[in-house]
């Protein structure tokens, strides 16, 4: 009995302080929710999304918000694990979130898609590329879906009339295996490939994978940029000097890793992406300059750029709806706001931002925008 009584006291104490902290009353802002890896292995991608969304919201609020109504970001940490999304989703609903950026990773995103269906909570995900993420009417993607990213990449590789390519992918990651599956389906049958895979448990030592791929002159890497940088650094004198690394949108930000001097990599590095973190002019250039000043270079990547665009796309759609007579206030429910935004996104709403110009969305939630073939670095001259 002693144990039970003593610990019930502890429960009340904790509940009290937590309840007090979280219910900070109904402030008059439009709340934008976000669930992403703010800690753990994938924290660098989650942090980029959180920082960029904050930056966009500050800019919008600085020049008046939505007709005087300020926006507010509620970023929750899910460590890129699907079992944590449930708690974050409930916190969002109870904090009065009206619109959201969904999840940062595909694995967690699947859970968010299912949970948000009944509440009709609108989400525009910056980087959850799974094909099934936007399957419900309230779901949209700012990033390419695996299928079209995999398809685009295969189309590009087919055009290079190579006979053999290497593939480096992460076998325990939904993003990597999702794109690779589509890539293989669209690859010409005459192109053979050697596959090398790694998992979260072997992120640093890739020597076995290098041995498998050392004779390939073209290596397709549907992986995020941290393991990509690791592979390139470790393989720089083992793989042909004029080989080409070709990645997808996860590749962007490879130069931002602190201490990583990309010129020491002899091979060419290119990617299919909707953002180039080396941009200097236009919207992308402004974003890169401002982000680097505010948050530093080490979390500058396309996850952030895409999140920045998501906030502006939602804001643009809301502004357009208000101009068209729709009424949006801090009290508008998530359900109503979703209907308003769906009307815009399924309609003729076009958005131009850091990751694309004249971007439109289909009612299926998939984005149509021009994929850029971005060369991060040419083969070293010597």
């Amino acid at each position: 009995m002693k144990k039970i009584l003593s610990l019930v006291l502890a429960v009340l104490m904790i509940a009290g302080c937590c309840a007090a902290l979280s219910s900070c009353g109904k402030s008059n802002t439009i709340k934008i929710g976000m669930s992403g890896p703010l800690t753990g292995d994938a924290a660098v991608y989650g942090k980029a999304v959180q920082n960029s969304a904050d930056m966009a919201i500050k800019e919008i609020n600085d020049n008046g918000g939505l007709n005087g109504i300020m926006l507010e970001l509620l970023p929750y940490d899910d460590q890129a694990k699907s079992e944590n999304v449930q708690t974050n989703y409930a916190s969002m609903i109870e904090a009065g979130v009206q619109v959201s950026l969904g999840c940062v990773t595909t694995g967690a995103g699947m859970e968010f898609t299912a949970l948000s269906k009944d509440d009709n909570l609108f989400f525009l995900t910056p980087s959850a590329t799974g094909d099934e993420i936007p399957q419900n009417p309230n779901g949209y993607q700012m990033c390419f879906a695996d299928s079209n990213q995999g398809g685009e990449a295969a189309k590009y590789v087919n055009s290079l009339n190579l006979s053999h390519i290497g593939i480096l992918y992460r076998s325990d990651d939904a993003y990597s295996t999702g794109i690779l599956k589509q890539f293989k389906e669209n690859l010409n049958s005459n192109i053979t490939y050697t596959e090398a895979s790694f998992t979260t448990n072997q992120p640093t030592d890739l020597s076995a994978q290098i041995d498998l791929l050392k004779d390939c002159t073209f290596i397709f890497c549907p992986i995020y940029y941290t393991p990509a940088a690791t592979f390139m650094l470790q393989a720089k004198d083992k793989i042909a000097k004029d080989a080409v690394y070709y990645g997808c949108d996860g590749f962007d930000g490879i130069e931002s890793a602190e201490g990583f001097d990309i010129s020491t990599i002899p091979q060419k590095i290119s990617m299919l992406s909707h953002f180039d973190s080396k941009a200097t002019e236009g919207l992308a250039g402004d974003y890169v300059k401002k982000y680097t000043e505010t948050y530093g270079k080490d979390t500058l990547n396309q996850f952030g750029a895409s999140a920045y665009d998501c906030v502006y796309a939602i804001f643009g759609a809301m502004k357009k709806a208000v101009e068209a007579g729709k009424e949006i206030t801090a009290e508008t429910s998530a359900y109503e706001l979703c209907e308003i935004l769906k009307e815009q996104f399924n309609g003729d709403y076009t958005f131009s931002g850091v990751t694309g110009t004249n971007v439109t969305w289909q009612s299926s939630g998939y984005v149509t925008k021009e994929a850029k073939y971005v060369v991060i670095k040419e083969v070293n001259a010597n």
Partner: protein
Amino acid sequence: MDFINALINGLSLGGTYAMIAIGYTMVYGIAKMLNFAHGDIIMVGGYAMYVTLLLVGQPIVALIAAIVFCVILGVCVERFAYKPLRGASPLAVLITAIGVSSLLQSLAQIAFGSAPKMLMAVQISGTVTLGSIHIAYYTILTLALTVVIMVAMTLFVKYSKPGRAMVAVSEDRDAARLMGINTNAIIAITFAIGSALAAVAGYCMLIKSPTLTNTLGAMPGIKAFTAAVIGGIGSIPGAMLGGIVLGVIEAISLSIPGLAPFTDAVEFGILIIILLVKPAGLLGKARREKV
């Protein structure tokens, strides 16, 4: 010829696992506890190298700084987290070690941010090709360090006074205390050596691939614990053998494309088979309970 390369990769990978495993097995032998935070000492050593490189820029100085820092950290962790629990149930100490491990990882993320750091200055590139066999310089250095450490440890345990005292304490702590051995000092020395080896292991990992994140030490720690058990927990030569065996299994499994995604299953599967055949590990001596 791929097999040879895979073998060489396995030896260099096994070398790093062996260094970490020696730390695990010594601490287990002496303090009868599983120091789950041992893997994270590697990560802390990495960040110590990162800071020193910013200040001084010399990899060798960075390594020495990392070793010194890790030794201090290892001894402090033992002094404040484990010593109070001396005599408590081993499970309690295990849970504290788990707490220390997650504390080190989260403090590292607070101090250095979540983005990975690339320690290019530490990285050693360049390979030697003999016919179709490629041996990278870092593999040679790792193997050299592994051999040096193995020889040093074996001599230390056999011929040095603290070394023999360590063996005595691992055999029977109370008896050793009666023989005038200051067991607390010996346990502190064990943690110091274990942490120093962890720093060197961190160095060997970073010269190969210089990516440093706050979760760098997590999985290698578990692999090293597995290696220590394969070799027979508590036996230093066992830890060395277990580390090499595990490294080779992992490298070979990764070199076969179809098998690569199943590498974890292959490694742990072979571990179970070894333990079923030799319940006390390859070199462990089965302690027969006196009836």
